[in-house]
């Protein structure tokens, strides 16, 4: 039989019982809409986490003092101050897979400019730090190796801090006071956004680590190292080399655990995304159940339709319709039913995820592939749940059907 004619017959049959058709579609509509909305919200959350991970920089490995896996810090003495200048020198010179290293010293401090003051976090790092973290400057210039060597009183200012202290004015070239020590602002950092932990990464002052250690914090060891590996393939090798070097520098016998923790960007992001993935699959399975229920609705209504139209089937068979023709006719009807349902569901899903992102300020990301998947799944639902009724119609006896009242 000719496809378009069959399609028209199907549409006409569906239009005949418009309310019934719509109610049947509702299951599919809700199922597909749920899938689309869940995936959009899940993808949005994932994209946000990924953006935060990416804000760490490229091929970044973090080394923290202390061993996280042994109940946090406080094991063995000196564990908090295990990362030294000697380690720093070693990482720079002795590890082939490491392309750049920056130590990190962190302290909080009161910062003033004129009559403005705020407390912000002070980050002491090397020249390479903003490079490793792919953190562009919005104005001015980075401090230099010489600044680091001489522990000069220079600072890069985060965009949030700059806004608070200077308003819309240009901070570069101004003198600010950190714990009453005057520092010259040499550069304005670009905006980095919210970190994975939820803090504002732009609420910061970056200064040479030497200045931070000697002039502000008064410490002699580092909190962590931020390290850039040469490439994504050598991350594991770099991680291993760093570990070996630090164990050797710290003279740890083989039986002792590490007194530091090495984490790659990947490991950090894995932890963060696994939670959102669990959530996503949970919601998706709920959506699938609702699609299943929708499919059962389709099968139910198609069975009713076959019974109602027994006589029509008999007439068609009498004038030469084969079992296959009848099968195709009813199958197309159920596919059209669930495809229209799927289409409406996609629209509803897209609209509702837009509404969710608008109202609740969640990021959503509508992925075209999932729209295709949803469309395909609703076609499959139509075929899967429409086959049995269509098969039943095709098996009807023409004589009986013609007599059916």
């Amino acid at each position, binding site marked *: *039989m*000719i496809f378009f*004619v069959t399609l028209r017959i199907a549409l*006409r049959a569906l239009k*005949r019982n418009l309310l019934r058709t719509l109610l049947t579609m509702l299951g599919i509509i809700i199922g597909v809409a749920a899938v689309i909305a869940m995936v959009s919200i899940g993808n949005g959350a994932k994209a946000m986490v990924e953006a935060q991970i990416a804000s760490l920089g490229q091929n970044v490995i973090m080394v923290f003092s202390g061993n996280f896996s042994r109940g946090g810090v406080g094991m063995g003495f000196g564990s908090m101050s295990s990362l030294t200048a000697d380690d720093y020198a070693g990482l720079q010179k002795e590890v082939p897979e490491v392309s750049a290293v920056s130590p990190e010293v962190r302290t909080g401090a009161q910062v003033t400019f004129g009559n403005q003051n705020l407390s912000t976090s002070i980050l002491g790092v090397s020249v390479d730090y903003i490079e490793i973290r792919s953190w562009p400057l919005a104005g001015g210039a980075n401090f230099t190796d010489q600044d680091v060597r001489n522990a000069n009183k220079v600072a890069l200012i985060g965009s949030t801090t700059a806004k608070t202290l200077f308003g819309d004015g240009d901070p570069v070239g101004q003198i600010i006071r950190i714990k009453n020590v005057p520092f010259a602002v040499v550069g304005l950092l670009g905006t980095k956004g919210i970190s994975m932990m939820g803090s504002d990464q732009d609420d910061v002052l970056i200064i040479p680590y030497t200045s931070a250690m000697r002039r502000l914090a008064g410490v002699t060891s580092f909190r962590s190292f931020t390290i850039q590996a040469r490439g994504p393939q050598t991350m594991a090798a770099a991680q291993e080399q760093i570990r070996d070097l630090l164990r050797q520098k710290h003279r740890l016998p083989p039986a002792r655990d590490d007194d530091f923790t090495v984490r790659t960007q990947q490991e950090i992001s894995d932890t963060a995304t696994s939670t959102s993935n669990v959530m996503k699959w949970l919601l998706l399975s709920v959506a699938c159940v609702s699609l299943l229920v929708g499919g059962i609705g389709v099968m139910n209504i198609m069975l009713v339709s076959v019974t109602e139209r027994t*006589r*029509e089937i*008999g*007439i*068609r*068979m*009498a*004038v*030469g*319709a*084969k*079992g*296959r*023709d009848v099968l195709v006719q009813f199958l197309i009807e159920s596919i059209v039913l669930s495809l229209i349902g799927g289409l409406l569901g996609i629209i509803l899903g897209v609209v509702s995820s837009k509404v969710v992102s608008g109202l609740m300020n969640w990021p959503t990301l509508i992925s075209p592939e999932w729209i295709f998947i949803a469309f395909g799944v609703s076609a499959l639902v139509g075929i899967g749940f429409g086959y049995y009724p269509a098969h039943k119609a095709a098996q009807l006896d*023409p*004589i009986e059907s*013609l007599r059916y009242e």
Partner: protein
Amino acid sequence: MPPIIQLEKIHKTYRNGDMAVHAVRGVDLQIEKGEFVAVMGASGSGKSTLMNILGCLDQPSEGRYLLDGIDVSRLGRDELAEIRNRKLGFVFQGFNLLSRTTAIENIELPMFYSRPPLRGRERRERANKALQLVGLGPRGDHHPNQLSGGQQQRVAIARALVMQPALLLADEPTGNLDSRTSIEIMGAFQELNEQGITIAMVTHELDVAHYARRTVIMRDGLILTDKPVESRLDAKVELKRLEATHTQTLTPSG
């Protein structure tokens, strides 16, 4: 030229649990091209079963059935559907038109299932021609519920003829019609028959059978008599007579 229909020792047995019902028990029948045969019999005589076998809706349990020279007695469901499509046209008692579908679309229906399928324009042309043939030219876009019983049956006849079948099969074609319309439909059958169309018709009404050329009377699954119709009725004459009686009863004699 072979006969249109040749039945040889046709048996049909239905199993109803342990009981076997012999609906047809050894029927031999030949229908030549251009014949107009009425099959008669009381209910339970096996005429409906025979009609279903003739119409390739059912298969005989035993015997051989040649339709237009093709042995159809052992064909499967799909092959029978194709034979019905190409060789047979059905007219039923209850018209069996698809409601909510126009007359023209009803007539086009068999052409959707023909192999190879006909193109839209050719379908429409042939349907229109068939509609002209049964005298319903301008009513192609009417739905069945907008047509009288006689008109609906004409649409059904047009649908039966649109594939130019070897045989037109009618099952109580006047069963749902008043006497006047019945005569009109018989008139249409007689006209078609004169144009060379072979017709087999099942009926239990003796006067309807008199419009045919030959009657076959069945009883208990066998053919009782098979003879040409004597004193055949002509629908045109009968229609005039009917009108005359109408005028007589309507005009007060004075």
